[in-house]
């Protein structure tokens, strides 16, 4: 009898589950709530909202998207009103002639969520406090460049810089994040701002904290009643009354949740998961309405080489390895074809097609490599087209036919696999072939250990596995090695030969390359064994490059000369092949229109990057409208 009763109990519990539906949110009207994946997962330290401290609590929990604000935003895509947006600032930054002083005008009528007015004092406090506390995130950056910061009036801030810096405003310009403005009236009351948890946060963004999980699995934000006193109000009222940022679990669980309409935005999942969603849920779509769905983030995954390890210091070897890669196979293996490939050292995203790819195309077609024995033109401009053709039989109408659409979705050209040329290049570098195996100049086998991130970045891991396989087939003893938790610190420590990672990240919407390129200057290069600061992870040293960087430093952010210098960098990088560019970082952000519409998309309204951990996604909220419920 007891058993029967137990069985009945279990059965009733099941029914309970059925009625309540898995993973619901209680006490919130679903049609006024948007549920978004927080890719940081479960937050270890959930009650920590002091976003100015290094790696303490969550930041893409909605905190930086909905609660924070700073002077300017640059969009990775087109932007609502152009790429550049003056957010807390009323205007663009004003530099003096030699870039030693920057003046900022601030907006009027902005208030913190507790009703206190936002003023220039907050900006000054933000800079001064962090200079005093170098363990705060932007403390070191401010300390290195700011001599003095003053507020001549309530809405003006003047930065006196230690040395000329035409890019100082970048610290306050959001690309994913930037230096957020601190509420002076809160922080000045605490003794030690580095030990203050800022709970509950006083926000300057359009939302305020509603509640959060003490175990760090979810955060719920509520639209401020005084949202009109925030910078975003210029574009209208944010749609959702509530926004929940949740940890939905591993990729398959995310797909299940969206199939059940319990997760409006998936941050990222596997390509296979996306195919399932597209097939089974008509209301789900990605950045591209059809294949490849994913949003190309302005980051350039590449094969990184450690130039301080022989033989990777040789451009011949690097070029040979590039010519052994069949990018079509890599695209298939990693993204199942849903990759946007790039042959050059900038990501093929945002407006970069217009800025760099289209102008470079002719140069690339005519580019020649000389192996000493013969000359080759390695660039194949039709690779993107070929990938599209390859996918068309299985994907049908999803694949665009228009050449421009294909270029946007799948990329343009890439290097044609050319084992002959690769062999000639290796031979020139002193390599020999014995039987099936390539030997290094010192007579030992040519071995490559290709570091990948494992399940922290499955798609990249899949790409690495494919590339290692292609090298293996040529007679190089290549193996991937997964190193999931400590990947970039390890790469920066110099303890690697080759890796699938990235050292190129750009604004996406803005052509200026200093965001990553400045750190590639040889003045920052560390000797072998010492830790290399980001982002010259390949430890490339080139006097030519140094010259380009120095020139960029002297011109303004919006100076059209910047783009020309950028092209110089690209040409140099093609000749030297310091890293082998592969593709953009495509994020499979999937949006469900069951409760909300108005998400950005590539074809009709690319107004912002939808990838939800980007702080820029705050622009999405004013575009979101409740779906018409049947």
């Amino acid at each position, binding site marked *: 009898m007891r058993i029967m009763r137990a069985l009945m109990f279990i059965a009733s519990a099941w029914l309970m589950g059925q009625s*309540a539906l898995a993973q619901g949110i209680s006490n919130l009207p679903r049609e006024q709530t948007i549920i978004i994946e927080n890719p940081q997962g479960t937050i270890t330290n959930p009650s920590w909202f002091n976003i100015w401290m*290094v790696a*303490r609590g969550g930041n893409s929990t909605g905190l930086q998207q909905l609660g924070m604000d700073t002077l300017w935003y640059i969009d990775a895509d087109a932007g609502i009103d152009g790429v550049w947006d003056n957010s807390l600032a009323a205007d663009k930054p004003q530099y003096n002639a030699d870039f030693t002083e920057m003046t900022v005008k601030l907006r009027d009528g902005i208030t913190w969520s507790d009703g206190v007015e936002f003023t220039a004092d907050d900006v000054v406090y933000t800079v001064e406090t962090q200079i005093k506390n170098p363990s705060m995130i932007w403390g070191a950056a401010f300390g290195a460049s700011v001599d003095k910061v003053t507020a001549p009036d309530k809405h003006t801030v003047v930065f006196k810089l230690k040395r000329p810096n035409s890019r100082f405003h970048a610290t306050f310009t959001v690309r994913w994040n930037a230096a957020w403005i601190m509420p002076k009236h809160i922080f000045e009351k605490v003794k030690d701002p580095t030990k203050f948890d800022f709970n509950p946060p006083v926000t300057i963004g359009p939302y305020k904290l509603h509640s959060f999980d003490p175990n760090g*699995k979810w955060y719920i934000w509520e639209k401020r009643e005084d949202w009109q006193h925030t910078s975003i109000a210029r574009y209208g009222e944010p749609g959702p009354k509530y926004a929940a940022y949740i940890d939905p679990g591993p990729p398959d669980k995310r797909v299940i949740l969206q199939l059940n309409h319990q997760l409006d935005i998936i941050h990222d999942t596997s390509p296979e998961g996306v195919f399932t969603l597209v097939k089974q849920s008509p209301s789900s779509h990605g950045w591209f309405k059809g294949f490849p769905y994913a949003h190309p983030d302005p980051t350039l995954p590449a094969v990184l080489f450690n130039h301080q390890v022989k033989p990777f210091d040789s451009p011949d070897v690097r070029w040979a390895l590039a010519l052994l890669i069949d990018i079509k196979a890599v695209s298939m293996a990693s993204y199942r074809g849903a990759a946007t490939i790039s042959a050059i050292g900038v990501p093929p995203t945002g407006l970069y097609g217009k800025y760099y790819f289209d102008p470079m195309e002719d140069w690339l077609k005519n580019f020649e490599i000389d192996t000493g024995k013969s000359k080759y033109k390695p660039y194949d401009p039709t690779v993107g087209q070929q990938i599209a053709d390859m996918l068309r039989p299985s994907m049908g109408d999803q694949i665009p036919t228009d050449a421009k659409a294909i270029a946007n979705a799948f990329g343009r050209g890439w290097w044609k696999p050319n084992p002959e040329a690769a062999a000639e290049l290796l031979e020139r570098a002193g390599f020999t072939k014995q039987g099936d195996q390539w030997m290094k100049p010192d007579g030992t086998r040519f071995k490559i250990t290709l570091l990948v991130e494992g399940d922290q970045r499955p798609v990249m891991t899949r790409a690495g596995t494919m590339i290692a396989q292609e090298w293996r087939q040529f007679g190089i003893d290549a193996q991937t090695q997964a190193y999931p938790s400590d990947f970039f610190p390890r790469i920066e420590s110099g303890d690697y030969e080759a890796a699938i990672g990235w050292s190129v990240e750009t604004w996406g919407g803005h052509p200026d390359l200093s965001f990553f390129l400045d750190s590639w200057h040889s003045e920052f290069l560390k000797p072998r064994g010492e830790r290399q600061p980001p982002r010259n992870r390949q430890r490339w040293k080139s006097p030519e490059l140094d010259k380009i960087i120095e020139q960029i430093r002297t011109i303004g952010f919006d100076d059209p000369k910047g783009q020309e210098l950028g092209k110089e960098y690209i040409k140099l990088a093609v000749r030297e092949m310091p890293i082998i560019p592969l593709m953009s970082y495509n994020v499979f952000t999937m949006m469900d229109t069951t409760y909300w519409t108005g998400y950005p998309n590539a074809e009709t309204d690319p107004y912002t990057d939808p990838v939800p951990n980007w702080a820029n996604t705050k622009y999405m909220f004013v575009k979101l409208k409740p779906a018409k419920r049947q």
Partner: protein
Amino acid sequence: MRTYALYFVSRLAQFVLVVFIGINVAYLITHLTPIDPVEQAISSVTMFGQSSPEMVEVMRKALRELYGLEGSAPQQYVTFWKRLATGDFGPSLSAFPTPVSTLIWQALPWTVGLLVCSTLIAWMVGNFLGGLAGYYRRNILLKALGIVAMSLQPIPYYIVAFILLIVFGFLWPVLPISGGAEMNIDRQGFAFAASIIQHSILPALSLVLVGMGAWFIGMRSLVSNIVTEDYVTYAELGGVDRRRILFSYVMRNALSPQVTGLALSLGAIFNGAIITEVVFGYPGLGTLLVRAVNAGDYSLVLGITSVSIIAVAAAILVIDIIYPLLDPRVVQG
């Protein structure tokens, strides 16, 4: 009474020894890791945002100071034990400056709740049914149950949990497959309790299924042996009520080895709980441990490992101490 005191002291000594050895192993291993929490923290900043090379240098120095990573190895070891004596594991490195103990306290109730409930259910139901199966050896239903238990018993927790996840989360999605309770639920009252129970069904079920099989089989074979003991035969000859024989004679005597078994397998059961938590995204020590490992937060890893060793050893100690109540012979032996 003196014998009991002696017994108590020897058990206590065993407890202290286990905890000491275990924590030392954990300390040694965590401090051999190549992962540097400072670099992890810096990397999390530079991954997306801006990063000027000068700034990284300054930040590295500041963080090193802040985390208190200075000091020689023996000094750090002594500090560790001094702190531990007051129940303090120092600050977490991935959630600095929150103390490790705070993080553990947040996670512990979930793990303990899940673990205690499922272990007790598995133990009681498994032993009860196993006892019946050993006593009524010809009952078809119990025989069938034996086959099921036998097939479940060798399968590791992960596989069972994984199958449950697929069946009830995907093929027939009726149960929550992640989290400990519904989001934003009022954290008191019946609804909260119901939500917790609902969310714990799958993780608990996987623990119960595997655990029950082992208890079932163990109890069945114990009972089949005890049935041939003189006192059982004698009680049968004495016409003692059959239910009384089953419970007071057979099961009651088989219980003591099963209690010992429970104590010995607590470590393994704890492993199972960790794995189950990871599979079902349950907010306990297991998921905290995995996150700590991936964040390179060795003070948190060390804290969780130490707490789990202490908890398991303490649970065993408690079982050992109450054991004489179950079997009055122990203290004398």
